[in-house]
């Protein structure tokens, strides 16, 4: 194991732990960016250039920005003053420790794992494109369909359900809210679109 690998792994794991334990949500998002960039560096170390750069484009570029936007839109106070952990957190930590122990034990004790790195494979973008267009063309089409459906679905879910005049409610009337909004939301979208949406 090279020192470079150790350094990158340490930075990645430290940033991931920070992303999961910091109090301020914006700090969490920034630590997540560091962790994902560290993972991209690990991919580059393992000769997976295309995946490394795709990781930077998709995760550091898009998903992190999406998370920052979600923090902004939910106005969750950047630093909450109540507890940040759910009530049964000790159980959660214990379960994840058990999971880590199991995975680590399996990784350290399994026989037959390859010991040496085989010579670096030719994984150019051209090769990957060839594979995507020949052997993996069906999964590629399915992924295209999935992404389209997911993005349209995300827009529909996040669309405003009712005109703005009704939405100036306080949190206390959240219980009575259930009567106001009809379960099939599709109808209210149409009416809201005609109403100009404010």
């Amino acid at each position, binding site marked *: 194991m090279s020192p470079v690998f150790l350094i990158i792994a340490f930075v990645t794991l430290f940033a991931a732990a920070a992303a999961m334990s910091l109090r301020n949500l914006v700090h969490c998002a920034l630590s997540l960016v560091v962790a994902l960039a560290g993972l991209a560096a690990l991919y580059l170390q393992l000769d997976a250039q295309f995946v490394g750069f795709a990781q930077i484009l998709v995760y550091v570029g898009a998903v992190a920005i999406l*998370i920052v936007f979600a923090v902004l839109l939910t106005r969750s106070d950047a630093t909450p003053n109540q507890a940040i952990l759910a009530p049964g957190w000790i159980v959660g930590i214990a379960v*994840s420790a058990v999971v880590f122990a199991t995975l*680590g034990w399996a990784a350290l004790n399994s026989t037959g794992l390859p010991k040496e790195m*085989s010579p670096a494979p030719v*994984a150019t973008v051209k090769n990957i494109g060839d594979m995507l267009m020949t052997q993996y063309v069906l999964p590629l089409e399915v992924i295209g369909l*999935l992404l389209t459906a997911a993005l349209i679905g995300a827009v529909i*879910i*996040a669309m405003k359900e009712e005109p703005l005049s009704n939405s100036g409610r306080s949190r206390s009337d959240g219980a009575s809210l259930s009567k106001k909004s009809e379960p099939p939301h599709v109808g209210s979208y149409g009416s809201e679109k005609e109403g100009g949406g404010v």
Partner: protein
Amino acid sequence: MTPLQGCLLVSALLFAIGLAGAVTRRNAILALVGIELMLNAANLNFIAFWRYGPHPEALSGMMVVIFSIAIAAAEAAVGLALIIAIYRHYRTANLDEMKNLKG
């Protein structure tokens, strides 16, 4: 410890960190971040086994990771849209305050 085992240990620890965050944090956004970390840990495993496996020229592990990144992006978009829609109902992003299934 071989380099492959090093990668597997890093990915196992990353998975455990993500799992701990996803089940213990109250904020829904951070639960989603934990899920992203777990997905990334799985991706690291795929890349490591691809690189140290006997037939890296088949590119199969890399293909799985490329598709998995695409699915993770779709999952993040839908998950954050759900969080925003739920926030509009409950005026909170804390998971333990969302107790009603109806409305």
